[in-house]
């Protein structure tokens, strides 16, 4: 395994680490994995998860770049002011352009956790070089069963009723949240629009892995919820969904991390990757 540090972007303001297999282990024609920042954390990921994943992928012949978007970790913001979302998408594109131009990689798999998953979704839609993505605690919407899963265990708990009554006396927005009308933690966008976007990726033959944890239980709380959320989606076998209800949002426990990393590496190896 080789790790090298690169500076790229129009102002050389972005920093990333390219992890590549030794020449003997390298597999040609595979996409490179681009690991995005999880929230405000720098490129190593929560509990160094991205570093560990990069090194495991390299052992299986797969290259990856973990990098900081502008203003996070060790990367500077570009001097030209853009909205936060456009700046993030521009940085992801810069990373792909750089890898294509200087390292002859032509297709990419994006991996992101939390807002990193949201950024991966947006970037994948805009760039046909993205042939796959891993979304960790990505998009989620409550379904009828989500309410049952959420409230049924609470029916017999006195404290839950007390909390409910207390919130009924609170401002109306909190009441809406309590009864589940506003359950999303992040602004995911309208469900049907997101479904159409996912369908666009599938129609492009992108391979998609969605992994949800118990840490996302405020918007995803049972296995099978993905299918219920996106009933009209024609996945064509391109989408795999995993649910780890015992894991927390940042995979704090080693066993949970191990489960995830092993699964991601296996998933990558099991898919058929088209050139972009």
């Amino acid at each position: 395994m080789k790790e090298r540090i690169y500076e790229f972007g129009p102002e050389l303001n972005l920093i990333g680490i390219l992890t590549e297999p030794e020449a003997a282990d390298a597999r040609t024609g595979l996409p490179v994995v681009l690991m995005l920042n999880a929230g405000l954390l720098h490129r190593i990921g929560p509990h160094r998860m991205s570093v560990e994943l990069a090194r495991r992928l390299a052992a299986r012949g797969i290259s990856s770049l973990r990098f900081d978007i502008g203003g996070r970790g060790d990367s500077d913001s570009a001097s030209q002011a853009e909205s936060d979302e456009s700046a993030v998408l521009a940085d992801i594109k810069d990373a792909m352009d750089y890898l294509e131009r200087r390292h002859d990689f032509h297709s990419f798999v994006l991996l992101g956790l939390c807002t990193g998953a949201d950024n991966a979704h947006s970037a994948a839609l805009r760039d046909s070089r993205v042939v796959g993505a891993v979304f960790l605690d990505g998009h989620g919407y409550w379904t009828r069963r989500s309410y049952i899963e959420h409230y049924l265990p609470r029916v017999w708990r006195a404290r839950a009723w007390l909390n409910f009554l207390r919130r009924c006396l609170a401002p109306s927005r909190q009441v809406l949240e309590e009864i589940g009308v506003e359950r999303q933690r992040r602004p995911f966008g309208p469900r049907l629009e997101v479904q159409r976007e996912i369908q666009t990726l599938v129609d492009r033959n992108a391979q998609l892995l969605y992994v949800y944890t118990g840490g996302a239980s405020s918007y995803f709380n049972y296995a099978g919820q993905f299918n219920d959320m996106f009933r009209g989606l024609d996945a064509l076998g391109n989408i795999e969904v995993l649910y780890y209800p015992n894991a927390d949002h940042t995979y704090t426990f080693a066993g949970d991390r191990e489960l995830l990393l092993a699964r991601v590496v296996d998933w990558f190896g099991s898919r058929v990757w088209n050139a972009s």
Partner: protein
Amino acid sequence: MTAFHFGPAEEPLFGVYTPPRASVPRDAAIVLCAPIGLEYMRTHYAIRLLAIQLAAMGFHVLRFDYHGIGDSSAEVGVGQFDIWLDDVALAVRELVDISGVQAPALVGLRMGALLAVEALAGRGLRAKGLVLWEPVVAGREYLAVLEHMNAQMIAARDVPPRPTDDLLGARYPVDLRAAIQGIHLEKRVCNLDVSSAALVVSEDRPEYGVLLKEMRNRWPDAMYRSMDDPIAWDNLKAAFDARLTGPIVRAVAEAAESLT
């Protein structure tokens, strides 16, 4: 700012060198020693901000990741405490080579303060100044707090996790815990080959009072700055919060400036 690998080619360390701003260069250099474990994640941005501020004051600055942490090579394993002390010594030598400054100052945050002191005591290092920033004073208490928060996370799960030597997502092998447990920072500062020292903390605490007393036995003019803005290192909800406030970063930079 230059990110690079240094140290042994087979197991390199990741470092970031920030050169002094050309308009105000000084003949002075500073190595920043970061915390370990979850606190490393939580403070990365603050350490970066500090490096930028110190460089703006004219210092050569090197921040780095210890072996098994961040982007450096290897995993945390047996003998890790001694490896980390070697890493501090390696970083000091690297900055001497880069800057030409023979005795850089050290700034250590939390466990990084403890590692800086232990490396100064046990690796024959000479430093112009030493800033202890919110230091871990008693290793036993530091571990007890981590163990308590880890137990809280385990208790919140429906299914207990597989037993490991992890605390809040980072490995603390038995021998590392033993090494940390036996440390009392106030007993280690008396013989250091350091010209001057400062203690910068978020709030007054009894253990800082004890430490400051020992520091002033060694350096009568040792500087003390308390921000009266507590940081909840022992609060699980805050433990995943990635922020440290700007004022304490500025106070640390000013303390370092006053020593060199």
